């Protein structure tokens, strides 16, 4: 399957379902923070953005992540241009 990459050198962040509603954000483009090499780093960075982000991203988070449209664990690398989505466990079907 072809690789999905957002244009640019920053990150394209997407939010879905109750996470989108709670953060009040559908998508945003951010510069790649210097501290962020992995998905786990990105969770830590998100948790530092204020109480709403902290509640969603800190500790044993219920939020899942996809990097470039593939499910990604905490170890997954984060690179400039990546499309990174955050969402609750899926409930389709």
């Amino acid at each position, binding site marked *: *399957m072809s690789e999905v990459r957002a244009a640019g050198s920053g990150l394209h962040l997407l939010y*879905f379902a109750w996470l989108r509603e709670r953060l009040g954000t559908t998508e945003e483009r951010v510069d790649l923070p210097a501290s962020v090499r992995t998905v786990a780093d990105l969770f830590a960075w998100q948790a530092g953005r204020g109480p709403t982000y902290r509640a969603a991203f800190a500790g044993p988070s219920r939020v899942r992540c996809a990097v470039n*449209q593939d*499910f990604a664990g905490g170890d997954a690398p984060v690179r400039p241009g990546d499309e990174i989505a955050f*969402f609750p466990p*899926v*409930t*389709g*079907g």
Partner: protein
Amino acid sequence: MATVRVQAGPFDVGAETAALTAGRTDIGGIGCFLGTVRAGSGERRVAAMHLEHYPGMTERAMQRIAAEAERRWELLGCTLIHRTGPLAPGEPIVLVLAAAAHRQPALAATEFLIDWLKTRAPFWKKEIFDDGTEAWVEAHDADDTAAARWRERD
């Protein structure tokens, strides 16, 4: 080979089955699962369901799920259709079809496809109740357990 679609409108089970089998004489069995919106049985009744998804990733995930089923069983065709947007109770949400020479692979693949769709495709359901309240459906442990069966047999 698989037919994968994400769509707002309804689908036609008969037409999809016919499309899967048209002109084929090697198919012996087609397994099928059709998921529909339940109104629920609690005090609050579901007035509407809203299906959100992750455009782009959804289609990729569904293609991968279909490809995995085709790797595990000798399928002669496979259809995955999932609806999005607002749906009323009783309306169809999801259709899975799996065709094979015999019934065992067709039915096993059908079960596999819906188990994985429920746990690996980026859809989220929100229920809007008749009292005006709404709630995102929680993921079920039972769905993870059902999906995990297939990993064990890998």
